[in-house]
């Protein structure tokens, strides 16, 4: 148990350091001279060379990249992500004010996904080759294939413009949460339902279920205790991966529905070439991604004792 966790934590730590480095390098990937961008933001559009050079020295843009990275990391460790070039607010403040909206959206997508996908996959497997199975599989295929942004517009047309029961966009209350959550979570719903069905059908063939039945274990227990825990092992992996996809999906979905989260902040930052914002958002999203992976690894170990006790590679 210990060695497995230690290994996963180590991998997470290395990923974290890698992420900070790549995020730092984002400054140089944005076209233009960072010193000039900062000077423009500070002194207005008509900056002269003097101001640019002043900023370059003050902010250390003239130094070697490792030195700059070291300095940037120093700020990062004291939770200083810099200031927005546009409105001069601390990036951390901005992120802190936007993060709850994104987490709410991601969490409710996950919830809706699982609430639909798990029973659907289960029923499809139990009622294999009936109309119910066919329907669930068709639905899952659609879910996987339809892009989120397209579904967003379909939902808006149907629920907002035709039925007029949900607002087109906005933030606040359950009504505004429904459409973005559905649009964001549909891909995951389809995937998880399909996978659970396949995985359960596979487990259904296993000798240990026949042996449990031969020992008189009832069907309900067979399904929920003996089969499902095994069937969930591959599903959990995919849910973990999909959660990462979900986070990146928020960038598009938030902008369609005017959802004031991290994704919207990031996109605005990109359009405004506000690189501290871009860096901050990317960093936070990446850290969330890594944390999710650690959580999935823990859950995985709880599910599968073969992993929990393994010591080698």
């Amino acid at each position, binding site marked *: 148990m210990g060695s497995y966790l230690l290994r996963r934590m180590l991998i997470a730590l290395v990923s974290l350091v890698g992420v900070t480095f790549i995020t730092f390098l984002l400054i140089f990937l944005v076209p233009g001279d960072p010193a000039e961008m900062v000077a423009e933001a500070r002194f207005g559009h008509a900056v002269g060379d003097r101001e640019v050079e002043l900023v370059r020295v003050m902010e250390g843009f003239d130094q070697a990249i490792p030195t700059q990275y070291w300095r940037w990391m120093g700020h990062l460790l004291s939770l200083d992500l810099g200031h927005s070039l546009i409105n001069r607010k601390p990036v951390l403040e901005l992120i802190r004010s936007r993060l709850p909206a994104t987490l709410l959206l991601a969490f409710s997508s996950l919830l809706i996904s699982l609430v639909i996908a798990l029973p659907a996959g289960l029923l499809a497997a139990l009622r294999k080759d009936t109309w119910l199975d066919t329907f669930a599989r068709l639905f899952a295929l659609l879910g996987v294939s339809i892009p989120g942004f397209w579904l967003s517009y379909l939902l808006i047309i149907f629920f907002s413009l035709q039925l007029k029961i949900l607002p087109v966009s906005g933030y606040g209350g359950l009504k505004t949460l429904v459409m973005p959550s559905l649009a964001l979570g549909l891909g995951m719903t389809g995937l998880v339902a399909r996978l659970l069905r396949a995985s359960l059908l596979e487990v259904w063939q296993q000798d240990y279920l026949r042996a*449990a*039945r*031969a*020992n*008189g274990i009832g069907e309900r227990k067979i399904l929920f205790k*003996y089969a499902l825990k*095994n069937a969930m092992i591959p599903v959990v992996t995919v849910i973990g991966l999909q959660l990462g996809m979900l986070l990146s999906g928020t960038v598009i979905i938030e902008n369609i529905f005017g959802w004031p989260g991290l994704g919207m902040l990031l996109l605005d930052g990109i359009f405004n070439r506000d690189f501290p914002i871009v860096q901050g958002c990317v960093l936070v999203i990446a850290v969330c991604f890594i944390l999710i992976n650690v959580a999935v690894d823990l859950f995985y170990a709880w599910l599968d*004792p073969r992993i929990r*006790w393994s010591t080698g590679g």
Partner: protein
Amino acid sequence: MSALLQIDRLSVIYHINGYALPALQEVDLHLAAGEKLGLVGESGAGKTTLAGAVMGLLPRGATVKGKIIFKGKILSPAHFARLRGREMVLIPQNVYNSLNPVLSIGQQMEDLQIEGKIPREKRQATMLNLLQKVRLPRPQAVPGSYPHQLSGGMKQRVLLAMGLSRSPSLVLADEPTKGLDPVRRMGILSLVRELVDRNGQSLVLITHDLNAAVYLCDTVALMYRGQLVEIIPASRLLTAGLHPYTRALLAAAPERGLGIPARVDGPPSPFPLHGCPYSPLCELCLPACRKEKPPLFPVGHGHLVRCGQIA
């Protein structure tokens, strides 16, 4: 002796891609209370299918005909669920995948003691007692471990302990020594005999080891391609086996003690639906054998043979 289990003209047909495979053909079998029966035949003979039919555990889509009478009652699908684990139990064939990989041995064993509200300490004690009975080394360490931490022999003992936990009157053991090394094999077999004898349980031992059947059982039934070809008291098998298939097994088996020699492991020809199942390989085959299946013919001492030369 009164019959505990009686099987009456039992036929099972599997359907694979629209092709019907008769895995059992009109099998008649009788098992007295406390009797130990060895069911011997090469793989594919239908031994596991027979056990599955008795337990009501055949795969969906298998067609079953005939009657299974247990303690005087004709079993219907509704009965099996109530009898399994309590009255009859199957020690499964595949040791390596018959314990749930994600549940501890303790969790799996506790699920077998669900009747009534038993206090936790009592459950633990019962469990430990069972594990001791099957002579597991360090039994107190077993409940907390997971299947992948146990060796094949230990798994087999755990499965045995689970099967015997509610003292069912009928124990079906499907090749309980398959995949174990010869030293362990003997240990498991004597353990099975000892436990079953102590409780006066009836046993159906499925094996393709003639010696194991003779050592453990009162009666041996030989199966070939879904049909019983000979039923014989175990004590007479080695000297008085009559059916050509039995004789071929005997000729090849005693020195090696296990396995099915290549000579009797027939070519994958289609099942002959008419005539004796062994006729394509039989040296004593008569023209009549190919046309009509000979009956199981009694030759005295509870010995029955299905052979055209004898009937």
